[in-house]
């Protein structure tokens, strides 16, 4: 009975087959270069990729309701640049205020996208494509094409990304923030009404409306949250890289979407889990971190990354298929 249960979870759980794919990748990398599995490297990796990992959560919400947001890179730039400029021009802005400002700008950006999608009935990919251009253009214009260099950013702000004070010295602050987001989302999606209604809306909008769910509000919420997280990441970005450039985070949306999809989030909505997204984002982080480590030609790295992504998703499909086939065979017997 017990064993049967384990098999059943295995069958129904994309996450486990994903985990196996990930372990395979890790094994190969470690075999090529044992440094990969050192505490220091893992900590570096998580610190650097906490941004992408946080964004993957927001993207997951958006994908769950059947939308997509490719403007996040631009939103990060706009919000990060905004807070960096404020800090540059007003010495002594407290770190918290700067963070809140960035988050606020991101939230507004997200809500605006939500407004256009929900009220203007613009397909998400178009709306966010449009806003991607608008926000990026505004970032350049707002900063007058300048960057905010490290020396103009308050030390306390820069130290946020390197410090460990949130956990009293245990974990890097970036990792802490990232983990907090994951825990929060896990709880939120599983145990709150709004969380479940996001799934319902993505699974069948019409049915959700018949059930009396305000699907417009849910959509607003998803895009707003995506914007809010982008704003947060904007602040973190400036902190971790100790500077703000107009072109920062350009193209990050593709990595984030890839994280989600590798993690089993369906692009047509309704399906996806926080655990899956965590694994998916982790795989992308591993690829980014490890490819330079394994000592292959620089020119081969991109091709290899593409190949690994393809192999990972195909392997995942194959394991899923064999599990299903096994189940059917067992049912036959």
């Amino acid at each position, binding site marked *: 009975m017990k064993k049967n249960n384990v098999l059943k979870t295995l069958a129904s759980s994309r996450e486990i087959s994903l985990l196996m794919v990930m372990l395979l990748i890790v094994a190969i990398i470690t075999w090529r270069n044992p440094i990969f599995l050192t505490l220091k490297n893992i900590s570096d990796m998580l610190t650097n990729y906490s941004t992408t990992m946080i964004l993957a959560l927001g993207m997951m919400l958006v994908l769950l309701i059947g939308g997509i947001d490719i403007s996040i890179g631009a939103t990060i730039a706009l919000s990060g640049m905004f807070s960096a400029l404020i800090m540059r021009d007003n010495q002594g802005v407290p770190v918290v205020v700067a963070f809140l400002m960035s988050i606020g700008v991101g939230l507004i950006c997200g809500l605006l996208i939500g407004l256009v999608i929900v009220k203007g009935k613009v397909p998400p990919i178009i709306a966010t494509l449009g806003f991607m251009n608008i926000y990026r253009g505004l970032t350049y214009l707002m900063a007058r094409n300048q960057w905010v260099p490290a020396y103009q950013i308050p030390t306390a702000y820069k130290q946020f990304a390197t410090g460990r004070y949130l956990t009293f010295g245990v974990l890097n602050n970036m990792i802490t923030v990232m983990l907090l987001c994951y825990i929060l989302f896990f709880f939120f999606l*599983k145990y*709150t009404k709004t969380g479940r209604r996001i*799934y*319902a809306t993505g699974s*069948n909008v019409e*049915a959700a409306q018949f*059930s009396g*769910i305000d699907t417009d509000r849910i959509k607003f919420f998803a895009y707003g949250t995506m914007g809010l997280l982008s704003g947060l990441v904007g602040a973190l970005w400036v902190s971790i890289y100790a500077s703000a450039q107009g072109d920062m985070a350009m193209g990050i949306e593709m990595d984030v979407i890839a994280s989600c999809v590798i993690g089993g989030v369906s692009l047509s909505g*309704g399906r996806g889990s926080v655990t899956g997204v965590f694994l998916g984002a982790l795989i992308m982080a591993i690829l980014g971190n490890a490819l330079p480590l394994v000592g292959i030609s620089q020119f081969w790295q991109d091709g290899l990354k593409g190949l690994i992504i393809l192999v990972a998703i195909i392997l995942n499909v194959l394991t899923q298929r064999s599990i299903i086939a096994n189940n*059917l065979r067992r049912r036959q017997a």
Partner: protein
Amino acid sequence: MTVQKEPETILELKGITKLFPGVRALDSVHFDLKKGEIHSLMGENGAGKSTLIKVISGVHHPDAGHIILDGKERVFRGTKEARDAGIATIYQHVTSYPHLSVAENIFTGHELVKNGIIQWKEMYRRSDELLHELGADFKSTDEIEALSVAQQQMVEIAKALALDSRIIIMDEPTAALTKQESEQLYLITERLRDKGTSVIFISHRFEDMYRLASRVTVFRDAKYIGTYRVDEISKRDLIKAMVGRETSEMFPKIELERGEEALRVENLSLTGYFHDVSFNVHRGEILGVTGLVGARRTEVMECVFGARLPSSGTIYVKGEAVQIRHPQDAMDHGIGLLTEDRQYQGLILDWTIGSNITLPIISELGNGILTNERAERSKAKTLAEKLNVKAQSIFDKAKSLSGGNQQKVVVAKLLASDLDVIILDEPTKGVDVGAKAQIYEIISQLAGQGYAIVMVSSEMPEILGMSDRIMVMCEGRVSGFLTPDATQEDILHLAMTKDTEGEE
């Protein structure tokens, strides 16, 4: 029936009119519902039944008329307001969340929370209770996607029950259920009535109405015809009220010479679904296929049609073994399938009726490469008229049709192709008496023209009345063949027999 004092009227609709672009779906209709009664709503396809219940449940706003609930006039601005007023609805077309569990489907919109935290255990427990009550054979943790249409329908019913409403509306809940499951539903409905809940019950099955309802309201062509006590109106009069003329519910079966063998299936298996299924069908013959829900009749037919790939077995067309790996292969060999799920598999709802009908034959109508729109239009018109589809023009969208008329379009689509073997999976599901008679008529005609016909159905009278031979399936195996002089009990016996008896 115990004699009591006249129960109070809980819901009353007066002069309701609902217009859709180009269609008057409801024309000043009346309806009233008493406390603790089961009230049946009948009428032909497109008569406006579903529209009326959508007005009641707040999906549509009437263009004229009043809704009076508990003596007070109400305007429902949305489904939530109606639901809060104690009205629960099971819609005709399943409105489920395919990716979510059964429990979530039941509770979405009114989740069980404590301090803002969802009580999963409680939700699963309550759902399992409801499912048990309904006699369902699946669990609250199953995903909807993995359930059959019938099972999904049960979830819909559970959903309405979970709301503890004063008024429950069921729009053709039995269309996808077997007799056995329907019986389960009757019991539940009666229990609800006894608790004082009022039920509006829409069905094209007279047995449903006679079994359950105390009163019946009839609509025809968007108009109110009358409300009758069920024990005071004969079936004949009722049909006349609905159709506007005399119709018999006879099966127009013509005895025919059995022609050559058109299709033979040998030892067809699909791992995990069915095993060693063998049958054949001749020209001019109607093979009825029946069984309980989950007997895997649909999967067998999908394999024959090439929509699924069987794990083993051979299919012979006109005596020759053929490879069927895709529906197109099946159609090339003259095999056509009318799918069970018309909305999802049968129609492109955004397309016009005409385009839907001619889609499988655009190549034949054109010159193989180019389309020929003129030929498509005239073919579509001919077929749509032949099947009496209730529409203004072949350019009407398929989604604007009522359920039964959609089914007619699907049949028309099938008839467009040049076929020898026609497989019909639940061809009369959700079809009104008039249309049903027409479909039987068509099936007989087709058999008369030399088509070999496989008819999958859960309705015993239909199976017994139409078939030349009857194949009964149980849990993925053929449990036996019967002749049409068998009784319903014979079928039920075989349908519940788990071991194979390869008698011919």
